[in-house]
Structures are given as C-alpha cells and as structure tokens.
C-alpha cells in the first residue's frame, strides 16, 4: 500500500485542474458581499459567499469562461505531457503513459471544443432583470426563465468538467473497479447533459432513454465485473491478465464476466445491438453534446475495450482469442446497420449518429483482427495505432460536423435535413467545412479520415492476407483458405462505398437546395474559427508532415498500451 505522499501529483495535473475548475465554478458565481456578523459583536466579516454578487462575478459567462480556461489549460498540459513522454504510476490503480496522455489530449480537446460551442449554443443573457410585482405573468415567467437559464450555466459546465474528469481518470486507471467508477462518473454526467436540453420535449426523452439503456448496460457491466471479482479475487488489470493467460480452458465465470463487461462498453461505443439508444440520444441532445458523445464518449468506450481485451484477454501470438468471432460478427453487423440506417435518415444528427455507429464497426473490425492472433506484436501495434488514430482525428471531423449543426441549432434547424438546405448560399465557408467533414468521414483521400481508414484496412489486410494457403494457385482456392478476418476488410470497403451515399447527400443538400431561410448564419466568431480550424486540421492530418507527427505520437501510445 502506498501512501498519499508517494503519489506524484504532477502526473494528474489535468484531472486536478478540472477539479479546481469545478470548485471554481461552484464558488465563483456565489461570491458576494455577504457578511457574517461575529456573534456578540457588531463587526461583520465578509464571508464572500452569498449576498449580492460582486460585479466582477455577476457576468453570467463566468462558468463557461472558467470551463474553457480549465480545458485549455488541461489540453496544454496534456500536450506538454505527450511532448515530455511523461509516464509513471499513481499507486497501483493508475498508470500514466503515452497512451493515457494521448487520450487526455483527446478528451480535453473534445471538451474544449464542446465548451466553446456551448458558449454560443446556450448563451446566458446579460443583465437579467428581477421580476417585479407589476409585471404581467408572461413577462415574469420569461424573466424567471432567463434567470434560471443563467443559473443553469454553472450546472452545465460542472457536468461537462465531470465528464472530462471521469474520462481522464478512466483512461489512466489500471484497476477495473476504478475504471468502472470513473466510467460511471462520466456516463452519469453525460446522461444529464443529454437531458439538459430541456427547452425541447425531446431533451428529456433522449436523456431518459439514454439513461435507462445506459444504466442497464452499466448494471450489466458491473455485474460482469463482480463475476470477474468472484473468479479472480482481484480487479487489478495485471492480475486479471495473469489469471486469464494461465487459464487452460475458458472459465465460464470469467468468460461471462468479461462478456458482460463488453456489453457495457459496447453500449458506450455504440456497437450493435447495444447502439439502439444512441441515435435517439444524439438527436435529442444539443449538438455539441451529441458531438461529445460521438467522439470522447466513444473513445472512452474504446479505451475500456482495448484495456480489457488487449491487456487482459489477449492470448498468445498464434492463438485465436475467444472473443474474436463475437467481435467479428458484432463489427460486421454494426457497420452494416449503421450505414444502412444512415442511408435514408432525414435528421442530420441521427445520420451522424448512425455514421458514428458505423465507424465503431470499423474500429471493432480492427480490434477483431488483433484477436485473431495472426499478427505479430508489431502488426498488432499497427492496428491499435490505426484505431487510436481514428479516435483522435474523429474529434476533428465528427465533432466538427456536430459543431456545424450547433450553429444551426439556434434557428431550430439542426433536426432536419431541411436545415442544411442551401447552407452554401447562406455561408459558404461553413458549408465547405461541412463538406470536408463529410468527405473525411467517408474516407476520401487526402483527408485524414482516409488515412485512418486506410490504416485500419491496412492492418487487417496486413495480418490476414498472408493466411491463404501458399499452394493455392487459383483465386477460389486462395479465397477459401484465407482467414475470415480478411473479409472484414472487404466488408469495410463495401460499407465505405455505401456510406458515401449519405455523406455526399449532405453535400448535395448544402450546395444545391434552396435555403429555408435566407438570413445569414449567426456570427459566433469563435465557434466559426473552431470549425475552420477543425476543417483545416482534417486536411492537414491527412497527408504530409503533420500527419506524420500525429502518427508517431499515436504509435507511441499504441506501443505503451500493449
């Protein structure tokens, strides 16, 4: 047992920053001139909390500014940590390495972007008026609403920070229970965030569904974890890994436990058939939150999956993992389902949700390839690199797409394809950015989405194409002898082709339909800049030196995972 003093605090700076941020968010808006009279005296000491707020903290933007500030700081810190290749252990339950650093970066960047977006999506009103007796009922209620809205800002950003905190902790934990608890922290906050969109009917409904299905999933997961505990007596990942590899035949308890945990994580990443609530949640939540779910939350799920699958259950080289066939089937179903469902979706958010499901399928396919045990350590790392790379750049273009939707959200146009109609005429820059995001999602070179998809297919092909029997002289002989994993690559390819249809459709709608309203989009300068930056990086990470740098980082992360 290590004592607190052994913990090297510097390893947890991003988390600590978020905690500080949360505290600041709680305290700052409440600062006021309240004084407490020292009993029995007339002197009153200012306690700074309560009373009439100071002018400086009266600004309703305070929470969002704090959040943005916090996230940018943690983002920078994560960058620094990646740069410095920081690693180390926090007790026995957390480990910091390039992998966790990279994911901290992913999470914090997602949250940063999300908070910038929400800065505009749910803006507070300045100078709220206190209702007076003379006001009519209507104006009283609006005024109260405004007040409430301003009040909610804090809640929202606190929840956002909670999500970040949970995610960062989760990626670092090496103890299954901590992993699960932090996951729950993030999940529970995100349920609320989904439901936070109260102005519309759908907010509550989306939150409910997401919450119910999510809680069932996490209950299943926690039950699975308890089974693992029963089996092993310890939830340290390393310890589980040792027991697993020493296991001769599959212990049903371990197997079922692991399977149930996978269900929970499968829900997080949106794998079929656990994905059903995702489109509902995405379409019900406000766009930035949907973006958060599609990127950070998904990344979190994949971190968990990778941790338990690659660290715990990965068999020796050359033997097939027990779960391989399951993941193969799930991945194929997931990508097909996602793509087909997205094909005719007329709600852009649902479409993006389904596309996100499909992308989960691609990544699961890559994971299944590792489970086949065909690859060497190196080729496995290559595949993991591909997956992580994909998760990283998803932040750019998937979140970017949601950001574009969030620009439209104000006008209430983000729930229907009609809203995107004629976007190019209203704002060509945004439309072009959106088109770039779509093309990148579709995997069109030279955008970064292509590179990641290429890496995944490459990884799969890499380990499977050589499996066909050497003596096969004809295609049919060869095809019948090749490992099933190879067909995953073909399946990805076919699915990419199908997906192209709906991605391009967005382009068509944006460029060639008459706009519903002709007034220009809201300025929202920072959000706009963020979108453009996302678009630019989507291109830059596709080919050239920047992609090179990112790939190297990701590669290191992948190496440190395995």
């Amino acid at each position, binding site marked *: 047992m290590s004592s607190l003093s052994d913990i090297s605090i510097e390893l947890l700076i991003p988390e600590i920053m978020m905690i500080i941020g949360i505290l600041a968010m709680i305290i700052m808006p409440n600062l006021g001139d309240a004084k407490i009279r020292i009993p029995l005296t007339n002197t009153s000491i200012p306690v700074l909390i309560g009373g009439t707020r100071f002018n400086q903290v009266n600004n309703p933007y305070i929470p969002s500014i704090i959040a943005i500030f916090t996230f940018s700081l943690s983002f920078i810190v994560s960058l620094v940590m990646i740069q410095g290749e920081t690693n180390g252990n926090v007790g026995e339950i957390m480990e910091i390495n390039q992998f966790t650093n990279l994911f901290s970066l992913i999470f914090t960047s997602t949250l940063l972007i999300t908070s910038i977006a929400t800065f505009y999506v749910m803006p507070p009103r300045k100078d709220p008026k206190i209702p007076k007796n003379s006001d009519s009922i209507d104006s009283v209620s609006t005024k109260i609403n405004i007040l409430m809205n301003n009040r909610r800002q804090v809640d929202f950003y606190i929840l956002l920070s909670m999500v970040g905190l949970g995610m960062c902790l989760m990626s670092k934990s090496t103890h299954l229970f901590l992993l699960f608890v932090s996951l729950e922290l993030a999940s529970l906050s995100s349920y609320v965030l989904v439901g936070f969109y109260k102005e519309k009917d759908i907010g509550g409904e989306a939150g409910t569904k997401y919450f119910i299905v999510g809680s069932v999933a996490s209950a299943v997961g926690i039950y699975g974890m308890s089974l693992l505990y029963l089996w092993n007596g310890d939830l340290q990942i390393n310890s589980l890994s040792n027991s697993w590899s020493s296991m001769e035949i*599959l212990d049903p308890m371990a197997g079922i436990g692991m399977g149930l945990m996978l269900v929970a994580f499968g829900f997080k990443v949106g794998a079929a058939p656990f994905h059903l609530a995702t489109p509902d949640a995405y379409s019900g939540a406000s766009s930035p939150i949907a973006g958060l779910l599609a990127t950070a939350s998904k990344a979190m799920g994949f971190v968990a999956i990778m941790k338990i699958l690659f660290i715990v259950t990965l068999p020796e080289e050359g033997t097939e993992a027990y779960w391989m066939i399951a993941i193969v089937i799930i991945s194929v179903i997931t990508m097909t389902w996602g793509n087909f*469902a997205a094909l005719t979706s007329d709600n852009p958010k649902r479409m993006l949700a389904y596309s996100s499901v499909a992308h989960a399928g691609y990544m699961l396919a890559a994971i299944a390839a590792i489970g086949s045990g065909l690859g060497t350590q190196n080729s496995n790392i290559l595949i993991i690199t591909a997956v992580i790379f994909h998760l990283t750049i998803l932040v750019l273009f998937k979140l970017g797409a949601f950001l574009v939707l969030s620009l439209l959200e104000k006008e209430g146009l983000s729930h229907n394809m009609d809203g995107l109609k004629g976007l190019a005429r209203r704002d060509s820059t945004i439309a072009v950015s959106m088109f770039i995001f779509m093309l990148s999602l579709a995997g069109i070179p030279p955008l970064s989405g292509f590179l990641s998809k290429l890496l995944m297919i490459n990884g799969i092909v890499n380990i499977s194409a050589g499996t066909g029997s050497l003596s096969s002289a004809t295609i049919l002989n060869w095809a019948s002898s090749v490992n099933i994993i190879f067909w995953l690559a073909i399946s990805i390819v076919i699915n990419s082709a199908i997906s192209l249809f709906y991605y391009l459709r967005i382009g068509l709608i944006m460029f060639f339909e008459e706009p519903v309203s002709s007034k220009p989009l809201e300025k929202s300068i920072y959000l706009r800049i963020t979108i453009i930056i996302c678009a630019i990086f989507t291109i830059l990470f596709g080919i050239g030196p920047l992609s090179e740098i990112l790939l190297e980082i990701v590669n290191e992360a992948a190496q440190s995972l395995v």
Partner: protein
Amino acid sequence: MDQVKHEYPLLYPLIPILLLAPFLKIIGWDSVDAAFLIVTVPLLIFPTILIIGQIFNKNKVWKNKWKEGGILALGALAVSLTIALWILFDYLYGSYNFTDQSILTWFEWITFDFLQSDFTISEEIRIIGVGIWIDQVTLMILFVATFLCFLICWFSMGYMNTDPINEDRNHRFYAEFVLFSMGMFGMVMADSFLWLFIFWEIMGLCSYLLIGFYYWKVSAAYAAKKAFLTTRIGDVFLMVGLFILYDIYGSLDFEVIFDDPSTGVAGALVDSNQLFWALLLLFVGAVGKSAQFPLHVWLPDAMEGPTPVSALIHAATMVNAGLYLVARMVPFVDVHYNGVSGLENLGIIIAFIGGITAFMAALIAFVQNDIKKVLAYSTMSQLAYIFTGLGVALWFYNTDHHHAAMIAFGASMFHLFNHAMAKGMLFMASGSVIHEMHHAHDHMNNEGSHDHDFDPQDMRNMGGLASKMPITATAMMFGSMSIIGVPLIGGFWSKEGIIAETWKAAIEYEPLMLIPAILILATAGMTGFYMSRMWLMTFAGEPKNDVVNHVHESTPWIREPLLILTVITAIGGFGLALLDIIHFLSADTDHLEMHGFLYTLEHAFLPSDMTTRIVGWTTILLSFIIGPLIAARVHGGKLQKGMKAIVPINWLVILSSKFGHQDVENMSKSQFSEALQNRLYFDDIYEYLISKTIIPFANLSAWFDRIIIDGIIKQVESISVSSSIQIRKITTGSARDYILMAAVGMISIFILIWGVNA
C-alpha cells in the same frame, strides 16, 4: 444568255504553275522528288479553301474572282497534273532509274518490334513507312486521275458556280474535291498496302461528303450514308486481309512483298491457303469500292451528288481504286516470277463476280430513265468487265500462261483508261444536259419559282436535244461509242481483249470460266442497247417536253473539258493501241513502242487465234449492230421539223429513224421490268434485313444496358434504400425494446461463443 461568257482571265494567276516543273528541274530536283507535291499541295489547299471560304463566304471578290475557291482548287490540281506528267515523261524518256521501283520513303510512320516465337524480340525493327511506288500501272492511273480531276474541276466552275442552289456553298465542294483528289493520287502512288488503304478510306470520306453535298436533301443524306457504309463493309474485310498479309510477310510494303511473294517473314514458305484468304478479303474490299455485286447498291444512289462528283468519283477515279487493288495482286499469283501457286480459285471468283455484275448492271440499265442512273449502271457494268479481265488475268498468271495473262491484264488496265476517259466525259456531258435543262426550266418559270415536280435528269423530259447542244451531243456520242465498243473507238481496243481472253480461258483451259465469258459477251450486246437508248432518248426524236425548246449551250467552263475528252476518246484509244499500251501496262515492256497501223488493225480484227477471232466478231456484231439497232427501233426518231444538228449527229439521228418503230409499253409493264426498275430488289432485301436484324438488336442492346446492367445498379440502390427504411424501423423509440434487443443480442453472442469454443 446565248453568248458563252469567257472567264479565262481568272486563270492568269495559275500560269506560274506551268513553269513549276521546269523550275524544279532547273534547281536540280528529280521528278520523283517532286512527287510528294502531288499529294501535299491538294492536302494543304483543302483547309485553305474551307476556312477562307467559310470566312469570306459572301465576299464579292471571293465569289467572282476566285470562283469560291474553284481557282485555288484548279491551281492545286494543275500542280499535281504538271508533276504527274513530268514523272510520266521522265519514266518514258527520262534518265531517272525507276528499276528500283520503290522510289522513296518520306518518313517512318510507325516503327515497332516484334515478339518471336522463341521469346525474343526480332532484331530488325518493323517499320511502316510512307513513300511512293511507281510503275506502269501507277503511272497510267495517276495520269488518268490527275488529268480527269483537273478537267472536272474546270467543268465544275461552270456547273457548280452558276447553280443558285449552291450559292455560298461551293467552297465546300472545292475543298472536298481537292481532298478527294489528294486521296486518289495518294492511293495510286502509295508504296504499301497500308497506305493504299489509308488513302482509300480518305476517298471514302470524300465520297461521303460529296454525295451528301446537298445535305438538306433526305435522299442525298441517305445515299451518302449508304455509300460510306457499304464501302466500309468491304473495307473492314480489306483490313483483315491486310492483317493476314502482314502476318505472312511481316510488312505491307510493296517492295518487301513483291520482292519475293513466295517467301514470307523470316524466310518461311507462304501458305497458299492463307494467302488465298488474304487476297480474297482484299478483293472484298475492292468489291465494295468498285460497286460490284453484292455490294453494288450504293453506286446508283450516289448519283444524288452533284454531277461533277458523279463524273469524278463514281465513274472516273474512285471506283477504279478497287481495280487498282486487284491489279496489285498480280505479283502474288504470277508463278512466272516467284508467285504462289494454287490460287486459281481467286481468279475464278473475281471473274465470276465481274461477270455477274456486268450482266446484272446492264439489265437494270435497260429500264432506267434517269440519265445519270443509266450511266451509273453502265459504270458498274464496265467496271465488272475490268474485274472479269483481271480475274482471268490472275487465273492465267497462276496457271503459268504468262502471255495470255499479260494480254488479259493489259487489256483490263487499258479498259480502265478508256472507260475512265469516256465515262468522265459522259457524265460531264450529262451534267451539261441536266444543267441546261434546269436553267431552261427555271428560265421558263420566271426564275426562282422552283417546280419541284420537274426532274431535269429524266430522259423522258428530253429528246431532240441534238440540235440545241451540238458539242454535248457529239461528246456523248463518242463517249457512248467508246463504252459500246464501236470498232476503232476507245473502249473497243480494250473490251475486245477482255472478252477474247475470257473465252480463251473458258474454252481452252477452264470450263468454269464459261459462265463469266457468256455473261460478258451478252453484256456487250446489252451495252450497245442501253447506251444507244440513252443517247437516242436524249438527243434524237422530237422534244418530249416544252423545256427542251429553251435549252442553250451557254454556260462557261463546260465546253472545254468536253472537247478535250472527245478528242481523247475518239482517237486516244486507237493511238495508244498503236503504241502497244497493253504490253506496256502489263509490265512486259517499259517503253511505248510504235506498231504499224495495219499490224494493229490486223491484230484487232483478224487475230491468228480462231477463238479470239470468232469471239471478236461476235462481240462487234452484238454490241455494234444488234444492240444499237434495237435501241433505234424503240427510241430512235427524227428531230423536230426545222431543227438541224451538225452533220455527223444529224446523220446519226436520221439513221436511227430508219429502222421502224417498236412499242415496248407492254414489255415495260412486265413483272421482270418492274423487278429491274426496283434494281432486282437488292436494296429492298438489304433494307429489310437491316431493319429486321440490326436495328432491333441495337435497340435490344440499349434496352439491355439500361434495364439489366444499369438496372442491377439501380436495384442495388433501391434495395439499399428500402432495407435502410426497414432497418430504421427497428429503432422503435421505446427504451424497453432497446434493452430487449440488446439482451437477446448479448445472449445469442454468448451462445455463439460457447458453441465455437466448445
């Protein structure tokens, strides 16, 4: 109107061309060095006329001084003619050594390597070059082509530029005309089969363009397409023939092939069977181009083009291309010099096709009333003569009857010459008639208002023109005589030879030849009939239409070519026969030698060989006596009272009325006559076949592509969409269903894993 306007001053700019050959000689060129000018000058003039004409379409100077490009075209053709004559002169009397035959290679068109059967690349690089090849046949046809092109271009300036319907469009005519000329010259001089084919196709294009000159006429557009496609069918076979030849010899150059046709590439012995197929396919190409049975259907329709075009392309030059190609087959079969034996069948097939076409065309010509159509069928028939002659020649060559072969070959080539000159003139004369009829008709009907029902080409509207158009009548008379084979005039000298040699082959060697022999002998008589009929219907008798009375021979530029060609037709044949052209053309000698006058006559009328003698006299009897006699009985008649033609024609007209009159109304209503009117239904059958096979099949293909192949794609799309809608329905919106499905999925996956691992 009566006075023929002379516009010769317009020709002054062309005078320097006459000095071109001397000038080049002085600066040290050989005649063959200048040969490329024959082709390139027209080639360059073609776009010049076209572009200038399109831009300065309505310009007065362009129209009046340059004759809408006519002067330029004439100049280009003058250059070609000058140089062609120079080469001819050089060949006959000059110092240049033509024995190497393949004279020059201008540039290497394409070069490539060849993979041999031992998996090595051939050491010598294969070259397909461009050059010229000159021998007697080349020279003769080159002369014919350049000379006739020049004259017909001259004629066109009268014919085309005075027709109001051609206003502002004549530059197109002249441009296409020179391009065509270039094709013809190039084909004749080409030194390889490939380049022969290339120019051959260029001519096909020009033929298409010129037939379709009156593009707005539905019939013209149709005829143009028909001509191109029909010849194209022949051409693709020709192409395959070329491939086979290439396969055999590893080259398509005359030099390489003719050097030793019995050994192929790398010294391999040539398989006569393969060569037979190659030559047969080449012959199919020739059949298409020369409008022989069964690809003859395009030629009559081609008369839709302006008359100079008919004169040039469809009588005098282009249709000779097929003959030229067959003539080029001689070295393959000439077993006397390295030829490949065993190709007798080729000669027989060619002779058969020739015989059949000759007879058939003559039959159809019986009932034609359109003056140009008659000439068209006559062309087909005469070309068929030449084919028969060539077929016989090839047969003789292959069976090693060298002397007979040379006579047959020489006679065929000589007939080509005679026919080209005569037919060129006949068409121009007919053009003159048509033109004047048209003018007269317009004149009558207050110029401008066209009466579309009136057909200036229909002989039933003519009659009695002899007095109105003396020059035309004379020209046409000599032309017809040449075609008929009236003794001592033009075609007689060559036709006799062909018929006699065919009979000789049939009687003495190969009974199969009897069929073409009989056919062409019969055709000789029929020729006598239909040519006389045409002349008599046009020029003799009383006018059948008012229009005739207003006809004058007044258009400039038209008379000179007629006069020149009349002279050539009248005495040229005899003159060349005196020079023993037959042996010259068959490469027996390379000089023209003067024979004695009497010797030639004796040779022609009283040959020592009895067969030849009998056949010769039968021919004369049939073609000169019986045919014209019947024609005179049917169509002959005196001119209208008070009308007088010049002496010989007047005499002829009066003579034609002396044989009584026979009414053929009943005969013309017979079924057979109707069949002939309908060209023996060949066109109908072809049309029917095409409309029942090709068109439906094309539509079927289009349908198949749209519905099946693209339909599969569309089906994939619609299935995707419908399955997408279905799959979206699974997301019911109820959280309970989600949980249920997740649970079911989870459990089934557990079962699956358990099953796999157990």
